[in-house]
């Protein structure tokens, strides 16, 4: 943004005041704010991971306490809502990639869903691998 001159002889540019609730005006803006809020779910998931790691460090009793706490109804509700926001983050993030980096083959632009597809494949493979490591019987 360029610097706007503001002196005695040059009045400030008029800027229409914007309401704090500007994002409630249309579905597009609301979706934008919802997408921006996914970062809170991301941070929350890290907090859950840190709580799990702390319980593992402290011992079996702390781990039992952690699993018990995760079963509390409010905690469960919070995690289900957070998980929905995580999915929104993943989907919007993957679908943004082809727009940030348009791929061209032979002078033609590759369709967006073909550019985004490898992201989804990577996501499924990574998720399955993590689940396998966590769930396998040693």
């Amino acid at each position, binding site marked *: 943004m360029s610097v706007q001159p503001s002196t005695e002889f040059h009045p400030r540019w008029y800027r229409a005041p914007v309401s704090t609730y500007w994002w409630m005006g249309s579905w597009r803006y609301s979706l934008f704010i919802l997408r921006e809020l996914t970062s809170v779910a991301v941070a929350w998931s890290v907090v859950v991971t840190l709580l799990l*790691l702390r319980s593992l460090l402290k011992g079996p009793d702390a781990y039992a306490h952690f699993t018990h706490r*995760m079963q509390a109804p409010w905690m469960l509700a919070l995690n289900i809502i957070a998980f929905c926001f*995580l999915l929104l*983050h993943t989907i919007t993030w993957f679908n943004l990639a082809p727009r940030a980096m348009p791929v061209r083959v032979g002078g033609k632009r590759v369709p967006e869903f073909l550019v985004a597809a490898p992201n989804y494949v990577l996501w499924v493979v990574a998720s399955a691998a993590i689940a396998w490591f966590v769930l396998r019987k040693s």
Partner: protein
Amino acid sequence: MSKPSNEGFFWLLFSAGGVVAAVFIPVLLFLFGVAFPLGWLPQPSYEHLLTLARSPLARIFLFVVCSLPLFHWAHRFRFTLYDGLQVKHLNEAIFVLCYGGALVGTLLSGYLLLKI
């Protein structure tokens, strides 16, 4: 631009954290926050998870999964507050709070993973 800024560096952290969060975090919250508490999948034993978390690869993985997404959050949440609430006079406080929080979480994860 009139003066050099660090926005590029913070944006890089945001971007890297966004990828890590998109690919690895949903499955972790699904397992430990939804599937195990609801009994959809058997809760892994303490010994199994401890052995898993102690392996070098898992330590590195968990450190990356904790640190980068926190910086993703710091960047995005900062702008959510700037744009959503339009509190210009608080911008510096918001900046310190967001990146300070991310830094504390990163150090905490490093400490936990070294001691585990």
